[in-house]
Each structure stands twice: as C-alpha cells, then as structure tokens.
C-alpha cells in the first residue's frame, strides 16, 4: 500500500484527489504541489461570473485556504516541479529539493496554446487560464471599450459573451465557419453564432489574424482577409496544450497528454494522471479521450485517488460540461468526433433544442441549448451504447427516460 501520496498540480483535479484521499481514510502523507500561488480554485467562473465581477474569488476556491492543513494535506503552492523520476520515485522541485512518493498523481493540466503572430507580444493581448489572467482582463473591461476575441471555442465564446454583457463593443473572429465548429459542427455552431449576433457581437468567421498592430500596446487586429479591427485590447482563446515539460525523460508514455488506462494509471506502476492532462482509456467508448472540462477534473481526480489507494475502479464517467453564454445554458454529454446523423429534438432556430450525434443508430453524444433535463435524461442512453429508435428520439412527446428504461 502507498504511504506517501504526492500530487503534482494544485488545481481542481489535484485538490479533489487530495480531498478524496483524506475523506476516504488514506493512511500516510498527502502532499499537494502546485505552481500557482495560493489554494486551488475552480476555473469555470473565470470566463463568466468572476470575469463580470459578480462573484468574489473566494467562491471559486475548491476549499477554504485553511482546509488543507486542517485535514492533514501538506501543501506546496507556488512550487514548480521540474522533473519526475519514476524509477527512483521522487519529484524534483525547481530549488532541487526532492519529494519522494509511493503513489504519484500528475494533474498538471494545460497551458494556453500560443501562436506566433506578428505583434503578438504587444501589451493588451491576453490569454485566460488563471485568476491573474482574469484579473488583467477585468481591468480592461470598461463599458464602451472595444475588444477583439480571437478564437470562438468555449473560452472565447464565454469571454465574448461576458464582455458584451458588460457593455463593451466586441468583435469575435474564428477560422471556422461557426463558433464551436470543431466539436459541435456547423448546424449547432450556427445557433451559437446567432446567439452572439443577437446580443450585438460582431462575428467574423473563416478568417484569421494576420497581425496585431500597435507601438507599445495593441490598437488594431489585421486579418488575412484584409480587415482591420481597431481595438483597445484582445483576448486570445485558441485552446490549451497539456502541460508535460517535467515529464521529459521520465519514461512515462506521452501521446496527446499523459497516457493512462481506465484506472488512471500510466505505464509506470504507481504513477497516475487525471484531469486536462490525462489521455485516458474510456471503457465505454473503447478509445482514449482527453477532456478539458470541470466535471472530468473532479470525477477523474476522485477516481485516480481511489486507484492510488489500491482500489481497482474503472473510470467510465460519461463526460459532461456546460457553457453559460448570456442567459443561454449550453450543455454537452458523451463523446463524438464525427456523426452520421444529427437528430434534433425541438428546432435549432428556436433557442431550445437537444441535438444528438448518432452513429450506427446509437447516440454517442448530445448537446442541448436550454435543455438541461433532456441532456441529463439522454446520458443513460449514451452510456448504454444501445441503438435507439431515432423517430422516438426526435419526438418531443416521448420522455427520453423511456428510451433506455425499456428492455
């Protein structure tokens, strides 16, 4: 049995793992190491309520700062791990101190993807990952100012909405045909584009940034399509990449993150990974998936902790996330990369629908706009992997729960 539990990454995943270890009675030491200064926090509010100044930062804390010491969790915040030695079983910190482990969790998350665009180092260009990033953007958020949002994935879409809600003039640009195009496809993405336009965002699709202009500070964004967008600041949200640098030479297999099995374990016995960084084998979808969302951060953090204690519990959660934009609530459940059919309950142009991504007659995933109940109800159907009558799926008078309750 492991006696020294070490967790690298003091994020929602890492904190949840540490809390789970203690709540479920782990013996031995639990050490939570993270590069960010201060106790772990949840990131969803950073692009929404916290960014708009509607909730204090304390509300985002995973647990109050005093919780960790009170529960026998040793914390090393503001501490970067530079190396993991998986055979001698220690992690090395930037001051060359070593922390030995019997079981290790890698929960290092991701860092914002960067592209080198001329002018990209000008002041007034922000990414959003940490609370410090959010605070910098908040300082720019003065009603009437002009912002350009680069990238209309989930972060870009939420930031564009928050900026617009605070009375800024927002231009959003994305190389795809619609927001969220890569995940949700054109038909659904179009409804999100409509949502933003209805709230006054100027959207530019199928175009990309050629350069940022300015002397010291950015004052315009120039696109390849030849547009010149004058602005006061820019927020770039073009995705993250897994944070892996301390794993060079560790012997841990990497491929789009840290490769783990359904028990959250890497190729090295006793070394686990969870959260944004973990490319995990999913027993229900029979493939590896890496997920950058809140629910996975919690559930996989907890699952990894249990497996670190020697339980053999497969992690087979149906992935789920939400994205609030303006007063619209978007939710997604399941996993898909392609689809043969998009089966829609309700109408895509009505502001309330459930769209199911169907392959071989089975629902692999579904996205709902203002359809929380339907998303909840379709999740057991996704998990069952059973073929479903698509006419019943489409029929609004049919309770989705009946589709998986029947024999």
């Amino acid at each position, binding site marked *: 049995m492991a006696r020294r539990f070490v967790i690298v990454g003091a994020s929602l995943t890492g904190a949840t793992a540490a809390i789970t270890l203690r709540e479920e009675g782990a013996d031995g030491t639990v050490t939570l190491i993270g590069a960010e200064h201060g106790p772990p926090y*949840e990131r969803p509010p950073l692009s929404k*309520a916290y960014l708009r100044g509607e909730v204090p930062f304390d*509300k985002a804390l995973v647990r109050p700062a005093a919780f960790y010491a009170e529960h026998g969790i040793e914390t090393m915040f503001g501490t970067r791990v530079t190396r993991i030695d998986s055979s001698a079983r220690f992690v090395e910190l930037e001051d060359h101190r070593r922390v030995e482990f019997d079981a290790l969790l890698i929960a290092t998350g991701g860092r914002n993807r960067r592209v080198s665009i001329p002018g990209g180092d000008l002041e007034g260009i922000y990414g959003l990952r940490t609370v410090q990033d959010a605070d910098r953007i908040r300082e720019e958020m003065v009603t009437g100012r002009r912002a350009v949002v680069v990238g209309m994935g989930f972060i870009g879409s939420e930031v564009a909405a928050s900026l617009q809600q605070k009375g800024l003039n927002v231009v959003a640009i994305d190389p795809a045909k619609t927001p969220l195009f890569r995940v949700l496809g054109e038909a659904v993405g179009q409804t999100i584009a409509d949502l933003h336009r209805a709230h006054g965002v100027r959207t530019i699709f199928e175009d990309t940034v050629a350069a940022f202009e300015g002397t010291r500070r950015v004052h315009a964004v120039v696109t390849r399509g030849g547009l010149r967008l004058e602005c006061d600041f820019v927020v770039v949200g073009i995705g993250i990449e897994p944070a892996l640098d301390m794993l060079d030479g560790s012997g841990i297999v990497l491929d789009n993150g840290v490769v783990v099995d359904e028990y959250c374990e890497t190729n090295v016995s006793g070394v686990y990974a969870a959260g944004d960084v973990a490319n995990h084998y999913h027993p229900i979808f029979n493939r590896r998936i890496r997920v950058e969302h809140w629910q996975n951060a919690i559930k996989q953090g907890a699952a990894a902790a249990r497996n670190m204690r020697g339980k053999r519990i497969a992690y087979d959660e149906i992935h789920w996330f939400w994205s*609030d934009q303006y007063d619209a*609530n978007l939710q997604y459940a399941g996993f898909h990369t392609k689809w043969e059919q998009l089966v829609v309950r309700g109408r895509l142009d009505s502001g309330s629908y459930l769209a199911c991504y169907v392959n071989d007659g089975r629902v692999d995933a579904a996205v709902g706009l203002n359809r929380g109940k339907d998303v*909840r109800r379709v999740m057991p159907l996704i998990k069952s992997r059973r073929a479903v009558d698509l006419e019943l799926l489409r029929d609004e008078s049919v309770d989705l729960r009946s589709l998986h309750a029947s024999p």
Partner: protein
Amino acid sequence: MASEFVTAIKTSEIPAGGITAIDVRGTRVAVANIGGTYYAFDDACTHEQCSLAEEGELAGTTVTCTCHGSEFDVRTGKVLASPATLPLKVYPVQVAGDSLQIEV
C-alpha cells in the same frame, strides 16, 4: 415573526415524481412529491439560482439541478454533488386533509 405552518397548496396539485413551486409568505418554495411523501425546499438552487421546479430532476430523494448538475438531498438540503457548495434550505411540511402545510 415566528414560523408557523401555512396551508400552501392542495396535495392533488403536486404530481407524483414532480416538483411544483409556490409562493409561501413571500418565499418561493418548491414542493416535491416522492411516492406520496412531500418535501419542501427553496426553489432557487444555491449555485446560480435556477428554479428547481423548472430545472430539477428527482431520483429517489435526490434532486438534481439540471442547469449545472448540483445535487441535493431533499430531506435535509445537504449538497450531494457540486458545483453547489451551500445547502438548500428545507422546510417542515404536514398534510392536513387535502392540503399541504409548510412551516415558514
């Protein structure tokens, strides 16, 4: 004002397995009918104030707010799943004839 039981709604107006919201002396209260047993709790989810009568899904004595997935025990108000962190306020109830009385 001391709390007291207030006749709030006819029990027949709360469908089995359903949640109905009513105003009781200025408080928006949700009442759930779980197999003929009634529970009363604040209608607003403690996370982002979604209406549990509209967005809540019952399974046993657990209500899930389908806006963001918070789960509560309707008997105690205890948080069973985040993102909510604050418990849901629950109210004592009693059945009097064909009516449900709620203590507020």
